[in-house]
């Protein structure tokens, strides 16, 4: 039960971090608008006779909030600057929740939120939690699975987490049903989660995992235009960071002959923003030039003409990311990278990704018997095969 309390605390204090980011953004946008106005007024000092004669003196913008809320906002921003936001708020979260809700619903904040692609540190799940801030901040708040799935900062950054999984006989997936033998149900797999935080510098301990059967590397495709601040204060593109981490693990001597499975996640988030934020925002994808018809406005395909096999822009982008990783892996190791797409919030999707991982492990084990003919085992999607 302690774990539950800890998770609640993390989620509750995260909300204050999100609102803090929004408030910072609001202030920034407000200042930008005011600065632009002042510039305009400077160029035309004689404002008499103009309909908006009070324009230059007016300090109200679409990003402005009433003084009462401004005071609260200043307080949060100060706490953030001092770095003790986390200390203040979990305890007081219940009291301030209605204020946070008021802020969240305020048109100024909503206007700021609409420009969230300019707020690189705001996680995509922020709205999910802010919408329910009053509910979440109650002491009686009960965590549900979806909350945990959406929350960030849950898994501790030191140490590892692992879980045992097995594949029960009642597999509903008909494609694999005919291959199931009783032995399978006895086999247990261990899934070990390594946090990427210390991975690049501290790769010596990876030696302890030289006898794993498969390395699963997860990349969120929506990371292409997201950034974070590293320990030195440098702003880093998350996708580039993933690429570098992937390289260092692929090249690590411990994993020389190891199979790698790349899981590309958060396709739904990519889909939402690809229309406004091009894939080329990430340098690594600078050469992405999809053939798209002029009808594609918001990223969804409205006509087959000119588009690649009827795929939407989002699908093409996600596919391109997979191809880039495959080429990278091949250039580093001369081996094939297995790729699959996963929606981490959908249990079925996660199940079939893990099943695919298991199939790769089994193929590897069966290689001495069946040979490693590419024609039998190739394919990006899990497919049925008979032998």
């Amino acid at each position, binding site marked *: 039960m302690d774990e539950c309390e800890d998770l609640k605390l993390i989620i509750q204090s995260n909300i204050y971090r999100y609102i803090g980011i929004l408030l910072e953004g609001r202030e920034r946008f407000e200042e930008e608008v005011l600065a632009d106005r002042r510039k305009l007024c400077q160029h035309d000092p004689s404002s008499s006779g103009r309909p908006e004669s009070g324009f230059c003196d007016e300090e109200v913008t679409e990003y402005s909030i009433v003084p009462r809320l401004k005071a609260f906002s200043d307080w949060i921003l100060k706490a953030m600057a001092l770095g003790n936001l986390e200390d203040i708020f979990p305890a007081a979260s219940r009291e301030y929740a209605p204020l946070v809700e008021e802020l969240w619903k305020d048109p100024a904040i909503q206007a700021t939120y609409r420009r969230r692609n300019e707020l690189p540190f705001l996680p995509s799940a922020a709205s999910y939690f802010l919408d329910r801030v009053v509910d979440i901040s109650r002491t009686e708040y009960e965590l549900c699975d979806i909350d945990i799935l959406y929350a960030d900062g849950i898994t501790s950054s030191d140490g590892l987490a692992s879980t045992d999984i097995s594949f029960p006989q009642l597999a509903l997936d008909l494609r694999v049903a005919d291959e199931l033998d009783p032995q399978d149900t006895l086999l247990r797999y261990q899934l070990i989660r390594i946090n990427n935080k210390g991975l690049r*510098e501290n790769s010596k301990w990876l030696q302890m995992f030289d006898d794993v059967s498969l390395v699963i590397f997860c990349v969120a495709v929506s990371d292409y235009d997201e950034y974070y601040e590293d320990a030195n204060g440098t702003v880093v593109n998350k996708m580039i960071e993933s690429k570098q981490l992937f390289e260092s693990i692929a090249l690590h001597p411990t994993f020389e002959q190891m199979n790698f499975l790349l899981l590309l996640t958060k396709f739904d988030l990519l889909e939402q923003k690809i229309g406004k934020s091009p894939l080329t925002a990430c340098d690594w994808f600078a050469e992405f030039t999809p053939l798209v018809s002029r009808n594609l406005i918001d990223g969804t395909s409205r006509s087959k003409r000119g588009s690649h096999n009827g795929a939407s822009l989002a699908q093409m982008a996600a596919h391109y990311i997979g191809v880039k990783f495959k080429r990278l892996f091949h250039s580093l190791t001369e081996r094939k990278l297995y790729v699959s797409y996963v929606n981490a919030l959908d249990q079925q999707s996660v199940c079939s990704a893990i099943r695919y991982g298991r199939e790769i492990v089994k193929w590897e084990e069966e290689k001495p018997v069946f040979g490693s003919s590419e024609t039998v085992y190739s394919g990006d999607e899990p497919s049925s095969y008979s032998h």
Partner: protein
Amino acid sequence: MASVAELKEKHAAATASVNSLRERLRQRRQTLLDTDVEKYSKAQGRTAVSFNPTDLVCCRTLQGHSGKVYSLDWTPEKNWIVSASQDGRLIVWNALTSQKTHAIKLHCPWVMTCAFAPNGQSVACGGLDSACSIFNLSSQADRDGNMPVSRVLTGHKGYVSSCQYVPDQETRLITGSGDQTCVLWDVTTGQRISIFGGEFPSGHTADVLSLSINSLNTNMFISGSCDTTVRLWDLRIASRAVRTYHGHEGDINSVKFFPDGQRFGTGSDDGTCRLFDMRTGHQLQVYNREPDRNDNELPIVTSVAFSISGRLLFAGYSNGDCYVWDTLLAEMVLNLGTLQNSHEGRISCLGLSSDGSALCTGSWDKNLKLRGMAWHELL
């Protein structure tokens, strides 16, 4: 306000000048060192130690772990050994009878190091959980038959690769970590007394993999790191390392003080062991293996230990070899890995009993092996 490009240039220039200064230092040292231990000993007419087949009491295998053995430690007085394995357990063995006296299930199975307290009543271990856990061997098992942890030392920001109790002080312990620091702990309160490295200058610039406390002057200890250096520390002065020792060309996996406390031995990923003089910093000797006939990659040294007199240096290698080096003549006088009943996998750890009469080796083949040394009084 310098631009990023300018700063990068300055950094590169500074690094280049540090490297060239280092190279000059190295050359100067070489001219000062007119000889190494081997050449000097041979000039003195010393001959290598030799062994009769009867000198080695037959080997006993300690079986019980179901995963690779990563670390072992002897008690200072009784002949007990504690071993840590990837199966997530610490096992305490009575070396004389081969009996297991304790089997402790660990919360985090990825354990990398273990150590016995000076009074033999507690064991400490650490690993990928970034913490050092202490178990009191006389505590009662809980409902599930597990031994409760008596204290957890948290604070490291990386894995705990090595730990050792300060001799004759049950309450103080030093850990080495992947976060590039070493820490001196007060076990009774769980507090960090001092941090060596990290934010303070002159600390290691990569993971610390090993440490050794000077038994003749327990205020001094050395740490070996992936940054290819060994650093000497004074427990009373955490703010800077007393001395840094260069020479190795790869990660240093193991460091051990020489019995007289004036020198120390090291083992590294570069396949060599080296002997350094603590006071002057000179590299006194390099122990180089013969290259493999098949020209395979040189096996790396995972662990080192000295005999009671220091005449012998034991080195465990990644291919299962366990060389016994004549420290003076830099000759390999015996390879325990070629004997009957030797390990079938990488030797990950080794250690001598406090009276020097037995050598225990631990391996990735899941076993520990004990070999008695009949001639230990001589060497």
